[in-house]
């Protein structure tokens, strides 16, 4: 399943995905290398827009948890993120977006 968009005269399709992990250099590096290999193995890169980004857990999730109670990750068996600065925040999202134009 993919989303189909029409932006003015440009038609493109987009697929996305996300994986969450603890902030760790080796993990970041190996995910980067692995996704690089996936891109390089694409049968065609023409009109492909490929993006992999790493972002820390959103502050709003921590704010919500702080107000309503509960772990900001919704998990009881991992450390909470509340109070962590964005730089030292434990959890990162690896977000994937691939757009195919035309």
């Amino acid at each position, binding site marked *: 399943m993919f989303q189909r968009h029409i932006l003015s005269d440009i038609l493109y399709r987009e697929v996305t995905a996300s994986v969450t992990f603890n902030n760790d250099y080796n993990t970041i590096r190996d995910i980067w290398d692995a996704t690089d290999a*996936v891109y390089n193995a694409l049968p065609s890169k023409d009109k492909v827009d490929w993006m992999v980004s790493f972002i820390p857990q959103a502050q709003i999730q921590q704010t919500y948890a702080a107000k309503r109670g509960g772990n900001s990750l*919704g998990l009881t068996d991992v450390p909470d993120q509340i109070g962590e600065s964005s730089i030292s925040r434990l959890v990162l999202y690896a977000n994937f977006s691939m757009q195919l134009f035309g």
Partner: protein
Amino acid sequence: MEGARQQFVDESVAVAQKYGTYYPFLYINYAAPFQNPLCGYGSDSVEFLKTTAAKYDPNGVFQTLMPGGFKVGNLTCA
């Protein structure tokens, strides 16, 4: 495209599990249709979502007629 997306998920999860850094929580804004971000909110939150949906949408309009997104109606978490 679907193959590339599945590969991204499989490879990234494998890496995170290899280093013991994998978290089951998923960022819903980017989650793929085959991923299950609602369960990542925790059992209490899932129950709250189901109760709220049942209260304000007893006929399941948003569970059955609204296309796309992730639905709580038939959600089953491990």
